[in-house]
């Protein structure tokens, strides 16, 4: 799924709104919206977060790990992991995308890659 690791979503040329994950219909303009592919920069701000100590079987080996709702700079929000120590997590912190293994299907199965996030120093 290329959208997952490239952060490809959509942009509506009619109303200017950005969407991630990609949508074929613009909820603002519905059928009159003109949608085009948009690759997000991946930089954004943590809206809220948690540190997970008890996970489903697929993620048990990662505990504890941080999960956040991140608002991308273009506007849309998404859910993703933030790779840093739980003590460093803060509402309002800036993050940047990092390419990571997300999971594996069985011992020798398919490896899933995807985007995680890391703290970003916002200084230019």
């Amino acid at each position, binding site marked *: 799924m290329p959208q*997952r690791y490239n952060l490809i979503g959509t942009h509506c040329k009619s109303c200017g709104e950005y969407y991630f*994950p990609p949508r074929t219909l613009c909820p603002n303009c519905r059928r009159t919206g003109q949608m085009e592919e948009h690759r997000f920069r991946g930089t954004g701000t943590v*809206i*809220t*977060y*948690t*540190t*997970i*100590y*008890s*996970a*489903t*079987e*697929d*993620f*048990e080996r*990662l505990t504890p*790990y941080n*999960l*956040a*709702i991140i608002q991308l700079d273009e506007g849309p*929000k*998404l*859910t*993703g*992991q933030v790779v840093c120590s*739980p003590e460093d997590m803060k*509402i309002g912190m800036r993050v940047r995308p990092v390419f990571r293994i*997300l*999971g594996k299907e069985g011992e020798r199965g398919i490896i*899933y890659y*995807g985007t995680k996030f890391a703290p970003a120093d916002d200084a230019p």
Partner: protein
Amino acid sequence: MRAVSIIGVGCTRFGERWDSSLRDLVVETGIAAIEDAGVAGEAIDALYVGNMSGGRFVEQEHIGALIADYAGLSRLHIPSTRVEAACASGGLALREAFLAVASGYADIVIAAGVEKMTDVSSGVAADALAAAADREWECFFGATFPALYAMIARLHMRRYGTTREQLAQVAVKNHHHGHMNPIAQYHTEIKVEDVVSSPLVADPLRVLDCSPITDGAAALVLAPSDIASRYCDTPIRILASAQASDSLALHDRRDITTLDATVYAAKKAFAQARLTPEDIDVAEVHDCFTIGEILAIEDLGFFPKGEGGAATEEGRTAIGGDVAVNTSGGLKACGHPVGATGIKQAYEIVLQLRGEAGKRQVDDAEIGLTHNVGGSGGTALVHILSR
């Protein structure tokens, strides 16, 4: 639309029911409801059954026909429909049954709910429940249900000053109510210190902030109000039935600290009933996590946004307070067999309005409300009931 009343109720004991299968639970609750209403099988026009995930929990689908069969109704060929809206499946079954009677299409209709959750490992149960979130864009990145509610809690605490202790007070109150309820999963009272020192699940939520994994079933019998008194001395009117949806994924919401599905369902329900939140004496709300009850009492309009934590701390939602919330013990202490929860909520309100709630009876309860949420707020149902 015809006026609709509840003329019979039944509910199993909630908890780990290793002694009973899904079909045993259904038979137990179905018989109780039908006997309570004094109706014969031949009188039943339809069944609606709330069930979230029989396929994952007991590898049984086709729950509609199964329930009609084991309720002893297979030779009557009564239409039986399973409805699913995650943890709001029971509330939705009640609404479908209500619509069938209100429309005039059916007279006597059963609304039931059932879930058998303890036959699988906790990992499998967590994964089955996670299916109510957005599998591709939340769970794929490691989200769990407690994690989604933990993120709501974190932002609610930051924005409104809700404290860790206020969250714990929800669990303390609901265990206090639950210890007076014979069908509840837990009869133990707990203290704030117990909650805040229990193991972390998804920070800031801990084990005692979370509703348990539960087996159980509940059933209601509905009839047109104009014939309800033929069956029952104390029929309970359904003044309103409302449903609303929102984005499946939490990150797509307008406001992470408000469940808009609750706000819209509540607005519709209060308009239908021509009542306001101040008129409600007793409410069963969806406290799957402690923060869930705080959101509910704000989004339903019982307290201004951001003041749910303080209201809980001040005892305003306990029995004897402004509005008695979760007298059954709620999902937290009474238990949360997901597909049955919305029906059990109505069961508790019916007992309260009939004056049959025993030690947890709310004085002069005349108007009650149920609030059932699916997922992290993708679906919400609100029903208003009256003596």
